[in-house]
């Protein structure tokens, strides 16, 4: 379902973000085998969901998340893709209403 929904042959200027992600997808498939492919698909779907996220409660965010990690979280929001290492933290931030995603 996910693969059929990708449009890396679109008329947009190449390389599109989806094309770059597809290369990453193939890389993971070759390196780690099928068991991780499902995960990477999940990760890529998560990237789309992050398109419109923002820190809503900056006070809680800045007091609880250590400074070096704050930078990583903000960079991730800007990039629109969450690396696996940050996925659980993003989930917690969303659950607590600190991060809001449309």
């Amino acid at each position, binding site marked *: 379902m996910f693969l059929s929904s990708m449009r890396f042959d679109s008329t947009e200027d190449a390389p599109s973000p989806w094309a770059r992600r597809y290369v990453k997808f193939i890389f993971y498939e070759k390196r780690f085998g099928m*068991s991780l492919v499902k*995960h990477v*698909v999940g990760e890529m779907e998560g990237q789309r969901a992050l398109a419109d996220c923002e820190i809503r409660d900056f006070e809680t965010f800045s*007091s609880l998340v250590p400074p070096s*990690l704050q930078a990583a979280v903000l960079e991730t929001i800007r990039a629109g893709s969450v690396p*696996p290492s940050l996925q659980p933290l993003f989930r917690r931030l969303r659950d607590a209403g600190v991060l809001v995603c449309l």
Partner: protein
Amino acid sequence: MSFSWDDVNALRHYGKFIKAGGGIGEVRKALAWSTWYAVKWWSELKHELGIDADRNILGKALFMSLRARGIIDDGGRLVKRVEAPPRPVNPYSAEFVELHDSFDALGAVEVAKGAVDRDKLRILYSSMLAQGWYDVMRETFLDLVEIGRYLNIVEPHCKEGQLAYAVLRRHQPERYLAYDPDPDDVEATASLLGASPNVCAGKVCVLQTPTICGPAAREVASKFAGAFDAVLLFHTLYWMGDPLAELRCLKALLRPGGRLLVGQQVVESTPGLLAVVVSFGAKHVFRWRDVEALLDAAGFEKERRYTRYSPYYIAVWRAAQ
């Protein structure tokens, strides 16, 4: 600069972690901050809660770890002065101290009284698990216990699944069973691993259960993998309600001679970090000797101990026949 036997073992077996932390000098600064914060938090608890200071898990951890270092006496009074050390500049060592800063901002007394919102503690816990120093610690542990040798692995109290992810990223086990009592954690783990909670059809099974001792959970585990080659316990024992019973049930799931791969923070390890972590819902704190007594009583035999407490207890145990 003096070195204990455990320091030498840490350098020998945990060199990657120490290198990433900027070398022994920087790591020592970070560890000194952990002790400094522990003294600060204990002083605050004593001042606010008096004789009840060690009647909660945070206070108990602080009391036992500072007592083990001779910083406080049996009555909890400070008997050794601890100066604020210089701040480490290495990024990994610095972020270790930052974790303590964040916990300090919550207020140790408020945490001990249970007045801090659970969501806030969960964010801090997730932050810790996502920090670079923790990742290096996790990876170094997996290298040390040679995780690649084991094909069928069970991980109790998997929390948010980062350890399972680290194992699956580097190794293709035939079966990996992770379980946890918390439905949120089970969902987070399943999501991270690309699995569905409580569906044990593929190579990965993420199960919501408080214990593997129950007949239903045991049956799922046995059907999923038959006998397991290894139990992975990475800072896990303190989450278990009844660790001895759980360890015995885990032993029953292992094939004869199966291994228990243990990494466990103990009171002789970093006192501030121990206090932070137990505040996330731990039920026990252990001395390194308590850990060994527990594993022995559960029917395991020590195969190799790497470190007793610095940076934490690390050993491989074998299921006795």
